[in-house]
């Protein structure tokens, strides 16, 4: 689903974007041309891309590292690994986080050997010998205790905390892994050191304790949340082949089985400089920091850009329904397959989702919440769970007390039929377009927000200018486009329905 790039299109679009944005909002100072003047693209020989946006003002700077690897790169057995590595990227290096690296290395090798022995016994054909398993488990625990003695607890994060870093975190999605924080502007070199070191020289210490933490994260977000449970079933059902069907946090069995050695292999394959884009936004001068970036990040060895994902979700041919009996109140969703964010139709899908399901003026809100009162919340998400690959447009409804999933479904379907049979109004289309333009301006209000957008656009589209051209694309959407896409997309065989049915209500009905 590669976006078709016509020769010269990219060069033309920026000019057009600026013109359109300016025409619509004369007060808009933030057109692409003026933005571009403050942006520097810098590519290292090893393939790492920097985007530096100078935003003078308060002496602060935000750093956002976007790695082009997500849960979609995982295969059965290592689901959850992209996220697991994200956790490990805070564990330090051979210099940070250790009291004695050579000794610690030896101890860590022994942890790995002990894990391998334990795991081999646990999965032995014919079943494990319980006594032996217990013994091996103890050996594994003991080995970890030995290794723990060399640890300086969380030194990596501690340095950032103490030097004034704020908002330090990382996130993993289906499409990407990213790492971000902000620093006072005089700490650029410290950041360059830490960020280059964590990807050049990571140490997988405390791997198995951190795996426990991730299992708790899975229990917290997925297994102990009604919507978390439903969402996992929904995605697993909607996708037949594509890894979007896999939970980002991973399956419990994989979390209980993968090793630090697996994590190292994953890291070696995907954490190559050509797979990384770093955006730096704030009170810095590109000219002044580029030497620092070269010095620290130039040390990362060049690596092959990983091959693109082979599996493409086949065309949907069957309607599917998931019913989750649960103790919680009902929840309803239905999703329709749609092309990737790079598709020329992306803007139309965004407009469609806006008209149907964003805010108080949306059709779903007015029909389901305001007028029929069958739902207390009704919205549409244009692309879920990601955008890099073909994904789903998802309708989401929370039934009002005493109302049923069926009523919510009927009301959603009525709106779907309406948008297929009648064009949207001029007012609706105009609203979508002005929102997109204003959204662009609002997105430029803070350093981290800008950095994040730059990193995502550069990685997904290969060009950060998509932040601006995306708005131009929405401005070009016509009523016919919306109706055509609605007709093609909202058909039964393209649909997956998922709902929570309250156990007690179900019993009462029967």
């Amino acid at each position, binding site marked *: 689903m590669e976006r078709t*790039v016509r020769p010269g299109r990219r*060069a033309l679009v*920026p000019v057009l974007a600026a013109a359109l944005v300016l025409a619509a*909002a004369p007060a808009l*100072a*933030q057109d692409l041309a003026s933005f*571009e003047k403050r942006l*520097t693209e810098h590519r290292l020989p090893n393939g790492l*891309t920097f985007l530096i946006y100078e935003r003078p*003002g*308060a002496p*602060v700077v935000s750093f956002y590292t976007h790695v082009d690897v997500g849960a979609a790169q995982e295969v059965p057995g290592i689901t959850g690994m992209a996220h697991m590595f994200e956790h490990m990227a805070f564990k330090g290096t051979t*210099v940070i986080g250790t009291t004695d690296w050579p000794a610690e290395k030896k101890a860590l090798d022994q942890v790995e050997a002990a894990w391998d022995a334990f795991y081999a016994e646990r999965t032995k054909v014919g079943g494990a010998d319980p006594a032996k398993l217990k013994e091996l488990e103890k050996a594994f625990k003991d080995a970890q205790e030995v290794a723990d003695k060399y640890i300086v607890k*969380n030194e990596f*994060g*501690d340095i950032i*905390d103490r*030097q*004034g870093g704020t908002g*330090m975190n990382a996130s993993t999605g289906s499409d990407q892994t990213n790492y971000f924080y*902000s620093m006072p502007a005089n700490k650029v*070199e*410290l950041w360059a*050191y830490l960020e*280059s*070191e964590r990807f050049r020289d990571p140490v997988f210490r*405390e791997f*198995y304790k*951190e*795996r426990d*933490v991730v299992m*708790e994260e899975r229990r917290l977000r997925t297994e*102990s*949340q*009604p919507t978390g449970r439903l969402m996992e079933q929904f995605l697993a059902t909607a996708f037949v082949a594509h890894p979007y069907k896999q939970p980002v946090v991973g399956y419990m069995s994989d979390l209980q089985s993968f090793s630090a050695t697996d994590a190292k292999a994953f890291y070696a394959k995907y954490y190559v400089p*050509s797979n990384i884009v770093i955006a730096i936004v704030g009170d810095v001068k*590109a*000219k002044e920091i*580029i*030497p620092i970036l*070269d010095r620290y990040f130039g040390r990362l060895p060049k690596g092959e850009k990983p091959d693109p994902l082979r599996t493409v979700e086949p065309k949907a041919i069957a309607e599917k329904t998931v019913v989750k009996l649960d*103790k919680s*109140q009902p929840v309803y969703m239905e999703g329709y397959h749609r092309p990737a964010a790079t598709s020329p139709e992306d803007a139309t899908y965004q407009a469609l989702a806006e008209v149907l399901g964003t805010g*108080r*003026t949306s059709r779903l809100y*007015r029909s389901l919440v305001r007028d029929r*009162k069958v739902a*207390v919340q009704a919205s549409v998400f244009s692309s879920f769970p990601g955008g890099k690959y073909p994904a789903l447009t998802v309708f989401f409804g*929370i039934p*009002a*007390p*005493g*109302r049923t999933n069926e009523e919510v479904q009927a009301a959603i379907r009525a709106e779907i039929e309406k948008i297929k049979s009648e064009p949207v109004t001029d*007012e609706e289309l105009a609203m979508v377009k002005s929102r997109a*333009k204003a959204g662009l301006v*609002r997105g430029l*209000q*803070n350093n981290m927000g800008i950095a994040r957008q730059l990193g995502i656009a550069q990685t997904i589209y*290969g*060009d950060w200018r998509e932040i601006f051209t995306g708005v131009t694309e929405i401005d070009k959407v016509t009523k016919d486009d919306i109706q055509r896409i609605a007709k093609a997309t909202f058909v039964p065989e393209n649909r997956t329905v998922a709902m929570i049915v309250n156990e007690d209500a179900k019993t009462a009905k029967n």
Partner: protein
Amino acid sequence: MRKTTSMSLPALKLAAVLLLAAAAILPAAAQAKAWSDIKYPALPAFPIPKPQVVDLPNGMKVFLLEDRELPLISVTALVRAGANWEPAGKIGLAGLTGSVQRTGGTAKMTGDQIDDFLAARAASVETFIGDDAGSASMDCLGQDFDAVLPIFADVLRRPAFAQDKLDVAKVQANAGIARRNDNVGGITGREIAKLVYGADSPIARQTEYATIAAIARQDLVDFHAKYYHPNNVYLGVVGDFDSKEMLAKLQAAFGDWPKGPAFDGAAVPYRTTPNPGLFFIEKSDVNQANIVLAELGIEQKNPDYFPVQVMNEAFGGGFSARLFSNVRSKKGLAYSVRGSLGADFLYPGMFQAGLQTASSNMSRAIDAMKFEINDLVANPPSDDEIRRAKESILNSFIFNYDSRRKILGQQLSYAFYGLPADYLETYRANIEKVTREDVARVAKQYVKPENLSVLVVGKAADFDKPLAELGTVTTLDIAIPPPPAAGPKVEKTAASLAAGKAAWQRAVQAMTGGKPFAPAALETVSSIALTQPMAMTLKQTSLAVFPDRRRTVQVLPMGEQVTVLDGAGGFVQMGPRSMPLAGEQLERTSREFARQLTTLLRYAGDPGLEAVAAGKETVDGVAAEIVQITYRGAETRLWIGPDGRVIKQAHSTMNPATRAPGNAEILLSDWRETGGVKLPFKQVTRFDGQEAATATIESVTLDPKVDPALFAKPAA
């Protein structure tokens, strides 16, 4: 990568120039340093921008801060009002007022018109009322400011509180109640506050179906009228404007808003004694134990606030803080572990430490948390920990004022909560002053492990050991109370009985014109449009044979359904199948018959019919007297207008959609004369605020011929 082909020419040139420049600067010998060798240049001085503060003559405080970077303008108003001061019987009033203030529109525009107007401009106006403050905000492109400001001002000053939008908000509020036990985190946060502050304290108390049902539109109007005066408002504007021009615009929008009474919110009551113990809530659909240990914290104005911040940073602040290091990294017990001694403005915050852990780690996790809390007191943070904590707070201090929006927001809330304008500057100095001894002292003084309420929410069957082994367990019941079975309590006094009788007689007079009304039988044919439990239209013929027989025939898509009360019992017949009416169903059907308006009218003077005055209320602009009628054990309330017309009838009954106890409300209109009496020909029924049915009466026949066979039980 196809990147280079997509770069515009100027960008390429720029990149080339920069590359050359970089090459020139970078000496071949430049090397990466170890992090400890890195020297930091001094951070340039960055004075905190000061907003302009203006007091309008009507007492409104205005804060202006220009920010010319982007063509945007934001307005925020803080108002002295809040849920802390709503009546205990109407919990949720502040929240509903804050929501319908915006959605319910103004005198000039309906809420829907405002939605459309703002959406076309990608602008927003929002309102909210929290515990101790009301707020209103507006955000728009600079070019739209003049068009949006009048809406913002009207929403703030003159909201219409449209009834239909209150209905929507009440459905949302009831959904919140129905769903409040679905999320384990929500349960834990809510219940620990009740344990620490007391369940009746405004800080911890929660909305119920009954408190939402007790709220009428007039309550919202009154709540707004009581608190929303310019002298209770702090208004800040930040963005792309000229301050002088902006001030003129604000004066035009708010200058004529008359001053009102000063805010008189009483001190907020809460439990002042500790509530130590082990409390448990069963939640069987989770596989983690959600654990929290808590007690009262301190007030914001406490001079120990600063050492407490340093203690918090060392205990539960960052990566190297004790909780994260020991409980998460070292023991792997939780993904999220937190702990801090909280401060609040009007009352103490909470000391809280908590985590979520696998059910099978429950007791280990409690032990680990208790250890850390005890250790905080017994082995308070070392010099090294204090240094780290202070560095972390001070080195990131710039982020407190790195945007003009943040600064404006801070200045607004400092003024609102009575902190000095230079609070931020002194904060820094106050943190610098904190010593290890200070932290040790505050840990000892405010953290009392023996006073902690320990709450565990989870699936007991999966715990690593029975909770009872850890101490005496108090199990908390969080079942959601059903909607009230009866309406507001009515005081039965000689006066209320006399007033009730008089009002009821006015209603009877309006319906009968003083003529006697004593038919032996009455037949009513109506067409009913049902919207719930499912949408359909049905025809209904109801034949009442007084005093105690009634036969109702409903023509449904799947056939005819006949419901008969025969004086002794009754039955329901559908096609060839018949079922006796018994128990609750029989009682309900008999009650329905007894409180039907025509039945009440028929027995208007019956000594068994009791009418009690139950207050006054304005319904859709009509001032009505409420009368509670009890007849043959059935209760109902009538809203009687000044002309004697019954505008509304309400009582508790089963909600057919939820099949749970609920409230029915029938709006009566389209009065027509038939057979010498005036009756409402249109009756709209709502269950728990949701429109369920509209009945349109087609004919009313007095004393029709009655075939006694109609009431005979079908042969078995």
